[in-house]
């Protein structure tokens, strides 16, 4: 039990939202990605095997930590945050290398750096945030 007013901690909330988002993307890639997905005449989804594997991995681990409890969610958020900070830095200073690693035929698009940075920032907040209710420490598992 997290607090008297909240059933889920911030870390578990992060795990739920981002786990569902990553798994949703991964599943959509499998279902629709082989032939691409068009919306309004623009192809908005085209799967690459490396990315799809990463999306599955991140989604399963993060959403799994939601079901595993507060301690697991917090620890997973910390690891995800640190890993994605490194990936973001790599994507900024070595775009070609990062693009190759993630299966792109060229440099990593900037939009993906934004996605990595957002994932990292919110994971770090979820992993290292302290929740207090009316002055009482409540975030410990």
């Amino acid at each position: 039990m997290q607090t008297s007013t909240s059933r889920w901690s911030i870390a578990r909330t992060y795990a739920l939202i981002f786990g569902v988002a990553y798994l949703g993307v991964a599943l959509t890639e499998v279902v629709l990605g082989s032939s691409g997905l068009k919306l309004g005449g623009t192809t908005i989804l085209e799967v690459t095997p490396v990315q799809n594997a990463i999306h599955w991995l991140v989604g399963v681990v993060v959403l799994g930590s939601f079901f595993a409890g507060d301690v697991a969610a917090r620890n997973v958020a910390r690891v995800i945050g640190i890993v994605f900070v490194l990936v973001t830095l790599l994507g900024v200073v070595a775009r070609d290398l990062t693009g190759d690693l993630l299966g792109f035929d060229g440099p990593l698009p900037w939009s993906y750096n934004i996605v990595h940075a957002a994932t990292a920032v919110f994971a770090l907040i979820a992993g290292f945030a302290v929740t207090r209710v009316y002055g009482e420490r409540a975030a410990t598992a």
Partner: protein
Amino acid sequence: MSVLGGARWSREVRAASLAPLALAAGVIHLSAAVEHRTESGMVAGALLALSVVQIGVGWALSRRPTAALVIASGVGSLAVVAAWAASRTVTVPFVEGTPEAIGLPDLVATGLGVALAAGAVAVVRRPSSGRYLPLIWGLAAGLVAMSLAGTPIRYPEHAVAHAEHGGAHLALHVGAIVGASAAFACVLAREIVAGRLLIGLAIRER
């Protein structure tokens, strides 16, 4: 009650939080008006008027979110969505070029309109619950991000690389994660404003 749905927000705060949806739709329609200015003066004028109204509604929602304004903005959004659907499916009298092809920006603007209408219903029907607020913010941010990521012209210096190397192909990914980020940020803001969350290092917490 969960972190996602447990916090209590005043009706005014939640009504004002609908403002970004109207503002974003207005900006997209303003962009569309500029694009149509050489093709059809009437369509460009209508889009310009619509954008002015939407931006005005967004401003009014942020400053004075009365129940009447919330209801009017919801009904008006649905009317705009209906007009868009008609322009994409049938020949509209006096409007050349209809039915038009569906484009990503107008899909996004339509999504924002639907979100605004849904948000208006939530504000009116559930005066003490902020359950859907993160979802509305997430949806709006995700749709706008998908539109930006899926439009290579927004990145002129990288347009070729963007198109050739799959930048547009990532639009769904970008929209999903930016949407998740916005939803989570909404939860964070709510918890911080409610005094239930302090941001600080917790390395030695356990």
